């Protein structure tokens, strides 16, 4: 035992003993931490319609929506330790609910959007109830089965989902009012929808971030690390897994709703199981141990896809190769790699400063 036991002494004085996690970081480094990165990224993203081309805005919209989708998955993958191979089902339910409500029933976006989230969460509640009863690979297989059921319904239920024709030409929400804002007079409807999506995603990410840092989120990490021990803290493991599944499904539904409008239609292809693998790759590529890993992964993947398809049609080959490199060389993903690199620099710097090591 490295610490000597204070057998005779009374209980420690309250407070004062625990250093805040921030205090554990050496005093010289926090400059990087003090920069409000999230705000900065948000501002940069918000300027894209003005500073970038129409194509840039198109890519930015895709990144933003994928970021929310990947973050919702990571609530399961990184926080709760559940490997879902069917997360795209909830994305798809959200896309179809929002698309059908807006196109077929003329429901305004303000109602259709939250309805998409609720619909997906509800479906997650029903399917998740069964999934969390299974462990590991069986859990993965059942999520896959549910997502394929959704796919089969979307593909075959012509009267509601349009079958293999999908639900095309979903209308944009009414965003005319944006034109009267200062400096926004020239924005196209695509630009305006992008800005709306950006704000909605930013708010959603803030909420998920808050949830991850909440007591609920802390409990989820114990369930991830050691479900058996978690149960013996008094945690109803399945109930928490289900709660996490529902929250993750709901946010995936919101991402799906935005995606349906963004791509001007919802099609059964969106719900095929291989899309679930893609979003897992996004989360891993960015780093599933970090909250901002999946958004970074989403951005990297969308950008890479765009950059590479200019040169070759063999994007899956490139993606597979990236995945192999990730698995064998950088299991922590981009953010994990950056953090490790940063710590290395820190250590080297400290060694240089410290005369003992000179």
């Amino acid at each position: 035992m490295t610490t000597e036991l204070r057998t005779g002494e009374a209980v420690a004085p309250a407070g004062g003993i625990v250093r805040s996690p921030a205090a554990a970081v050496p005093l010289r480094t926090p400059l990087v931490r003090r920069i409000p990165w999230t705000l900065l990224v948000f501002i940069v993203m918000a300027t894209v319609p003005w500073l970038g081309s129409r194509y840039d805005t198109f890519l930015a919209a895709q990144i933003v929506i994928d970021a929310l989708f990947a973050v919702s998955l990571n609530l399961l993958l990184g926080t709760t330790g559940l490997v879902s191979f069917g997360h795209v089902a909830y994305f798809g339910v959200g896309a179809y609910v929002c698309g059908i409500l807006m196109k077929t029933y003329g429901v305004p976006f303000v109602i259709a959007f939250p309805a998409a989230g609720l619909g997906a969460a509800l479906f997650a509640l029903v399917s998740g109830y069964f999934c969390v009863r299974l462990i590991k690979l069986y859990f993965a297989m059942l999520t896959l089965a549910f997502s394929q059921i959704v796919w089969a319904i979307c593909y075959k239920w012509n009267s509601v989902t349009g079958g293999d024709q999908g639900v095309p030409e979903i209308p944009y929400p009414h965003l005319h009012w944006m034109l009267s804002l200062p400096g926004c007079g020239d924005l196209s409807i695509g630009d305006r929808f992008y800005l709306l999506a950006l704000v909605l995603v930013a708010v959603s990410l803030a909420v998920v971030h808050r949830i991850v840092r909440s007591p609920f989120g802390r409990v989820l990490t114990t369930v991830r690390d050691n479900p058996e021990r978690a149960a013996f803290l008094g945690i109803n493991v399945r109930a928490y897994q289900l709660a996490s599944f529902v929250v993750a499904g709901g946010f995936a539904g919101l991402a799906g709703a935005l995606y349906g409008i963004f791509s001007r239609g919802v099609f059964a292809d969106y719900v095929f199981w291989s899309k679930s693998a893609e979003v897992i790759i996004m989360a891993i590529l960015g780093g599933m141990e970090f909250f901002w890993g999946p958004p970074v992964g989403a951005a990297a993947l969308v950008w890479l896809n765009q950059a590479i398809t200019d040169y070759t049609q063999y994007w899956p080959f490139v993606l597979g190769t990236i995945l192999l490199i990730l698995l064998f060389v950088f299991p922590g993903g981009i953010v994990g790699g950056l953090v490790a690199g940063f710590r290395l620099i820190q250590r080297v710097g400290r060694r240089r400063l410290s005369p003992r090591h000179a």
Partner: protein
Amino acid sequence: MLEVQELRKSFAGFVAVGGVSLTVETGQIAAVIGPNGAGKSTLFNLITGHLQPDSGAVRLDGRDITGAAPHRIVRMGVGRSFQRTNIFPKLTVFENIQAAFLVHHGRGLNFWARSEALYRTETAALLYSIGLDGQENTIAGTLSYGNQKQLELGLALASDPRVLLLDEPTAGMSATETHETIRLLERIAGERSLTLLFTEHDMEVVFSIAQKIAVLHQGRIIADGTPEAVRNDAEVRRVYLGHREEQRA
């Protein structure tokens, strides 16, 4: 008071626990000993709900808790540590204990509060009392073996149990670590007036702190009483202490 009555469990024909009855009075420190495979861990798993007994009953202060799910049994006031260390390896030491407090106080379904601000003083005090202060920000999985055992004890204590079950609390520890752990256990049991039931293979440990010892052999209790009585029991000498002497020889 913890009462176990005629508890039975067999696995595919093999009787692991065959009709065990045992009573631990409130505030008592009791040990279950027995050779490997005697059924000690199975008995613990039956008491804490990890296994369902084939028959028999477990009562806590007169209340029947037989076969309830582990998370319910904890909430009724039974804490437990495991033979293999069982912590949350990717969380920090602080987060480990704090999570236990969050759950114990029923805050687990709070989606909105900032968890890092909660139960800081309670966590700090508990870490201090189990000798892990100063390690708050260490990732639990990187702690030394002895420290992990301490942390596990802390996890069990955070839910403020009335009865604490410890499965081999000093397994794998050095002589010094073992000695310190015993002092720690005795102090904490005294401070919190815990009812303590533990298994242990180190007879020195057992006879130094147990007020009552039950000897388990092939799934049955063959002796049950004060350390003195058990030490002098002929049957125990034959099947257990004798067995140990043979091993030494």
